[in-house]
């Protein structure tokens, strides 16, 4: 079991452990966990130890060290790495090694982090259970009969299982926050454009965002300091100064902070009683810390999921066109009689069922004669949803609500029922459609001992405010410090 990132840094600074010792501990933990949880698609002990060695050497030589020096980190297998495969957990990209590093990977390397491997995910980040991976399912460390959530299920499970203190996930409709909630860890989806998407294999470009997963808000802040910031290679990257996020986690006094509670969302059908109880409890904690609690509503909430499930597949159908077997990736083995047959066979063999379903939905929604009815209408509704957020944030500083309708569900429960799976995103997709930051943090446990998350959302670029409130909540509670039984 590995300590928090802050503790890992302290151990090294105090000379109580070297980066190599820490990396070895992480690699041992990964080995033990992998057989049970299957959170990784790729690990390379040797290269992890080698990069830890270079950190130790730097320290010994008195050279300046990066902010994450010697901290083991796992990254979702949707981020391009030049020294490891990038597969998106798809047959289509099995063995694919990009010739370049994603910007966040470059930044991690520059910060002297030790990248231990790539984590499992739903194929091309499509799913809410990590069951659509071509590399096998990942199991929830709290209960291995249950899903870790998705699509960053591997990234959340890797942290929950104590193999690494930090991981990077991506969130298109809740893919950081929902697995974080299911795995009892803290996950932050930053503002759209706050973290460069360069080198993130696109699922739905206008919604995708990279973010940190850790045990605590304090560790998330540490990682945000490294990955946030403007980058000219991503045109949608925001050219705004980056605050020191760790400063946000210093105070626990929430007096003067107005928190809007999305009470109506809790009336929705199919919401587990444990979710309602947890939220009520969280409201109490936050109020005790001095926050003012106000009821608010986001009126177009019922259109979130339908809007999302038009826009995301539409963009995905376009983004995934490049996987045609012509230039790289999977190509059908049998000699095809013509080009179109080659494309069809390669795509039929390379993509899994969920990916195909979304490509079909997206292709339909964008096609001539239907675009106005679906895609263009969805764009209009998206503008209304953004308007709801603007209106809400003119009244309150943060929004509080659930992350998921239920705690982690059983493996196999929803994988054959796409609609049920899509409803996992009920509370999370709003932040992606509006582009605002949101955090999921442990808020309690259900009677069976499964972790339950609560969600805070903030106005654009107010990650610090999220981390401030989350850190204060974590100073008053100990849910985030509890670990699954090994």
């Amino acid at each position, binding site marked *: 079991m590995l300590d928090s990132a802050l503790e890992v840094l302290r151990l090294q600074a105090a000379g109580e452990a070297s980066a190599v010792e820490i990396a070895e501990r992480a690699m041992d933990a990964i080995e033990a966990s992998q057989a049970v949880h299957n959170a990784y698609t790729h690990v390379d002990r040797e290269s992890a130890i080698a990069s830890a060695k270079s950190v130790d050497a730097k320290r010994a030589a008195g050279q300046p060290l990066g902010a994450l020096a010697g901290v083991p980190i796992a990254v979702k297998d949707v981020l391009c790495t030049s020294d490891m495969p990038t597969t998106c957990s798809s047959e289509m990209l099995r063995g694919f090694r*990009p010739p370049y590093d994603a910007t966040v990977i470059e930044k991690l390397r520059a910060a002297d982090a030790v990248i231990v491997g790539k984590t499992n995910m739903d194929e091309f980040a499509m799913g809410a259970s990590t069951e659509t991976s071509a590399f096998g399912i990942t199991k929830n460390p709290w209960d291995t009969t249950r899903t870790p959530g998705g699509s960053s299920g591997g990234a959340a499970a890797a942290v929950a299982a104590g193999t690494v203190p930090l991981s990077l996930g991506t969130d298109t409709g809740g893919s950081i926050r929902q697995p974080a909630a299911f795995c009892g860890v803290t996950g932050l989806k930053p503002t759209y454009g706050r973290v460069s998407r*360069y080198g993130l294999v*696109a699922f739905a470009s206008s919604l995708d965002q990279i973010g940190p997963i850790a045990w605590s808000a304090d560790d998330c802040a540490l990682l945000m300091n490294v990955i946030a910031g403007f980058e000219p*290679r991503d*045109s949608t990257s925001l050219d705004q100064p980056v605050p020191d996020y760790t400063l946000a986690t210093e105070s626990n006094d929430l007096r003067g902070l107005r928190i809007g509670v999305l009470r109506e969302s809790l009336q929705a059908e199919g919401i587990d009683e444990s979710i309602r109880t947890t939220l009520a409890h969280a409201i109490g904690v936050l109020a005790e810390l001095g926050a003012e609690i106000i009821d608010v509503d986001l009126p177009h909430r019922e259109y979130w999921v339908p809007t999302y499930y038009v826009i995301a597949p539409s963009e995905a159908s*376009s983004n995934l066109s490049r996987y*045609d077997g012509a230039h790289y990736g999977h190509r059908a083995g049998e000699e095809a009689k013509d080009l179109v047959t080659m494309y069809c066979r390669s795509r039929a063999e390379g993509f899994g069922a969920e990916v195909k379903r979304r490509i079909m939905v997206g292709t339909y929604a*964008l096609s*001539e004669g239907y675009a106005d009815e679906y895609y263009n209408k969805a764009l209009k509704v998206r503008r209304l949803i953004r308007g709801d957020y603007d209106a809400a944030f003119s009244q309150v500083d943060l929004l509080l609500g659930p992350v998921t309708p239920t705690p982690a569900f059983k493996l196999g429960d929803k994988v054959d029922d796409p609609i049920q799976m899509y409803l996992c995103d009920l509370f999370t997709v709003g932040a992606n459609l509006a582009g605002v930051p949101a955090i999921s943090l442990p808020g309690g446990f259900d009677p069976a001992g499964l972790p339950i998350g609560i969600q805070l959302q903030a106005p654009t670029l107010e990650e610090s405010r999220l981390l401030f409130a989350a850190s204060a909540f974590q100073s008053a509670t100990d849910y985030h410090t509890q670990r699954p039984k090994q």
Partner: protein
Amino acid sequence: MSQLPTTTIIGLEVHVQLKTATKLFCGCSTKFGSPPNTQVCPVCLGLPGALPVINEHAIELAIRAGLAIRCDIPPLTKWDRKQYFYPDLPKGYQISQFDLPICADGCLEITDPADPDAIRRIGIIRAHLEEDAGKSMHDEAAGRADSRIDLNRCGTPLLEIVSEPDMRTADEALAYLTKLKEIMTHLGVSDCEMQEGSLRVDANVNLHIDKHGQRIATPIVEVKNMNSFRNVAAALDYEVERQYAEWEETGHTIQTHGKRTFGWDDVKCVTYPQREKEESADYRYFPCPDLLPIRIPRERVEEIRASLGETPEETRERLQSQYGIKAYDADVIVSQGRAMVEYFDAAAMASGDGKRTSSWIQQDVMRTLKEQGSDIESFGVSAEQLGQLLSKVKSGELTNDRARDVFKHVSENGGGIEDAIKALGIEAVDDSEMEALVKELLAANPKVVDDVKNGNQKAVGSLIGQARGKNPNANPQKIREIALRLIDQA
């Protein structure tokens, strides 16, 4: 012929490759003719995770082009994805512009080929920016069916200029294309080299047949793959005949058969239908989520408008009146683009002899550029140097031949004119030295002296060659003068 009266309706879609150093969305070079797949990066290859970033220079060139063809430049333009599968399109979509093109609603005036005194106004619907695709090369020799793909061209910026169907004859289409090419090269927007694919034309053509007062439109045919203006004209003429014959035979009209895509076979000189699949494409356009819409401030448009300078016509007229050169010569220089005009202006000023400068540019400069495969902007002989050189020819200080040697030396080795003259050992030969040389030659060639005395002055010519053999700096004109004087005196 018992043919019914028909009107030909022609609209052109012209793709010009913008003259940027780098591609539309990445920093790769746009140089033509490099080894396959050497000018590529994750962005233009469309590798997973790579993202496009707009090249500002392409935007500026597109605005220049648009203003020159009298388009509006709307304050907001955006990018869209156009989806289709093709192996030389690595992303599976092309980043283009759909409903908000960068230039809209312009026109181009051409001289009516049927009446040199009349002007025809051809409407321009729009001009939009898009990235080029790569190139597939199919090797079907010896029963093999290898296909190779060169992606160097992927992401090269193109401006697609779409005309209204305002042209009525192949000659008008030709006049339109010629005029468009002249403007684009003159503005430095594009090289417009059809051979290199930097100018490509698709023609939409159909007929309106007047049958007893009733207008019948034949199906529209879009002709692709024409690699010269001559082929465009030939294809259009061919289509006029073919469509009429087809209509007589089948009765197909635009209502029954809409639009079809044809290719042009420049060996057989026929058009041929392309596969049905390529016609009924649904491109599923939608706004490209990787690129933000572009706001173009009014001030920027006006700034670019102010920098456009004179039109090719104005330049042509000015060159004729200012330097006294012929219309044809002015035309050749102007058709080489603005950089050449600027070069000519500077050289002619420095030489003080427009005619000589014009002929040197058309012969020596253009030939050397062709040999070196370079352009006037990077040419080794500056306009000032050429002017200096030609002023020496004008003053008789250098012969044309020696000036050519100097020109060649500078273009190959660089350095100044004086340096080249020195390096080539060119010195002015003084008169007494020259006289001695001629005396010597006359003594050795009594037959020449006799011939001249018998009235054949041309006989002196053989002395000139001999004299220059002994002293390459000898001026032929001088030799002739001295020889004739000495023979006359003898």
